[in-house]
């Protein structure tokens, strides 16, 4: 074992473990901070992230500006994309397949699914690619890396300022009555944001290391959309599969969204528990995984 260490490619020839630390551990008191070869276990950069909030603001501002500056209709794209999707689904599932949606017109019904789905999937895909698109920054300047996926996720939040009023407009147009339940919508949006931000963090950290993520993610999102109540009501899911189906965290959130706006069947307790539990678990593991991968981003990106 000792002999092997001599030739170990992980150790610089001529320096052995013991003389690397000959000068003892660094005198922490003399310096404001010490850069070590490895991250200390619990130094989450909470303070630094808070101190960089202005940078976060500027990154969001830049992303928004870039997103809408070059495009001819600017913010209009946030309306056009879900509307076009809605139109396609209305024709295919509303007119041809005739998915039963009770008293609610299929167009309103499908839009209350497409809006949260577009929100979730946009955050995930933009956050997942964010480290790659910002790699020149990562390689040159230090700041808490979490700001990059965070700023791109917040940018997607702004799309809601356009797509939500459109939804309310549709509801007025089709004379769908509003109820007090609309007050849970902000809570649902927060839950969706946290869940997709957590997934985005995991994907972003993986994407830097494995470029396959860029190929795999759109496929997985496609599958996930059909496994969630976006274009069909949960009543279509058979009794037998419902418990398994309810484990999908989006089922509870999306169903609650429809319950709040369209008086749809309320989500079961299992669905809600699964939504909240998944969100907490994924968000926590996303932050931890990102934290531990952060150091090598500049080297491998």
């Amino acid at each position, binding site marked *: 074992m000792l002999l*092997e260490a001599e*030739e170990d*490619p*992980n150790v*610089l020839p*001529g*320096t052995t473990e013991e003389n*690397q630390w000959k*000068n003892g551990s*660094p*005198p*922490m008191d*003399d*310096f*404001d*901070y*010490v*850069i*070590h*070869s*490895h*991250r200390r276990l619990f130094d989450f950069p909470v303070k630094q992230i808070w101190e960089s909030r*202005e*940078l976060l*603001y*500027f990154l969001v*501002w*830049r992303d928004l*500006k*870039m997103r809408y*500056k*070059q495009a001819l209709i600017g913010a209009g794209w946030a309306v056009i994309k879900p509307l076009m999707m809605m139109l396609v689904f209305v024709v295919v599932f509303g007119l041809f397949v005739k998915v039963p949606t009770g008293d609610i017109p299929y167009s309103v019904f499908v839009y209350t699914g497409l809006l949260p789905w577009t929100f979730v999937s946009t955050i995930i895909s933009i956050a997942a690619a964010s480290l790659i698109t910002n790699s*020149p*920054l*990562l*390689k*040159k*300047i*230090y*700041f808490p890396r979490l700001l990059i996926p965070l700023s791109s996720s917040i940018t997607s939040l702004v799309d809601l300022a356009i797509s939500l009023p459109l939804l309310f407009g549709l509801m007025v147009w089709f004379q769908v009555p509003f109820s007090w339940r609309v007050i849970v919508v902000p809570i649902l949006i927060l839950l969706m944001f946290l869940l997709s931000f957590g997934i985005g963090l995991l994907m972003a950290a993986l994407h830097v*290391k*494995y*470029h*396959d993520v860029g190929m795999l993610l759109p496929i997985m999102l496609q599958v996930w959309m059909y496994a969630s109540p976006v274009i069909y009501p949960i009543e279509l899911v058979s009794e037998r599969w419902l418990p398994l189906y309810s484990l999908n965290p989006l089922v509870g959130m999306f169903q609650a969204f429809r319950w709040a706006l369209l008086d749809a069947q309320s989500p079961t307790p299992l669905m809600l528990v699964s939504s909240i539990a998944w969100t907490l678990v994924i968000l926590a593991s996303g932050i931890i995984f990102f934290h531990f991968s952060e*150091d090598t981003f*500049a*080297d*491998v990106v």
Partner: protein
Amino acid sequence: MSNVVIHANRLSKRYEIGAVRENTLRGQVAAGFQKLGRRDKIHGESPTTLWALKDVSFEVEKGEVLGIIGKNGSGKSTLLKILSRVTRPTTGWVGIKGQIGSLLEVGTGFNPDLTGRENIYLNGAILGLRRQEIDRKFDEIVAFSEIEQFLYTPVKHYSSGMYVRLAFSVAIHLSADILMIDEVLGVGDAAFRQKSAARIQQIVKDEGRTIMLVSHDPGSIRSLCTKCLYLKAGALEGEGLPDSVVDDYLTDSIGATPGSNQATKVEPRHAKI
């Protein structure tokens, strides 16, 4: 401890050169199998690791201008990357007193579609300036860069000279205690270069801040620095007064007589820009 603001202790940095192929799942799986297969003869394999920095130690005191000289690939930029916390050392540690502001490449974080004004704010924030500080220094930055009339033009329409002048101006107005500058003194025309050098003198002499300067250019090291490190293939080859270290570097790399004008001409000036 006294005036030491940077204490680097036995820094080494290893890069895996073979890592590119392993960037995909397939590559990683394949590499894993390969490793399994040649487990017994692993030491016979040619190394795929590169030590960009080998056991480098030094100290910088407050108010010094430390020059770092060396050929391409000698580890200069890796050293600055470690000091600015972009990457971690493989072994060793660095203690730092005060805030570090780094200018590793002109125009990092500039967005071509944004205007000059917008880029000053964005780049300032990226480099660690507070919004209020940028507000306060805005006129100064603009005046220094000499691009007043193009402030509202997207920087993609700038000439490359204007672009680097603006970027350099933002960076040189950082308020950090320690400034790290990599190969940017060759920015702009002769007049602008002189202005930059004067500004650096001002930062050190009047404001008592510390500067680390990486350059290929023996001239700027000689005229600006108070101390110099010479890096060769990742190791610290010389350390001391700029004139003698630069002479060593010149004799060593091109075999020219120290101080001869020809020697400086042969050097690829500011190759990174």
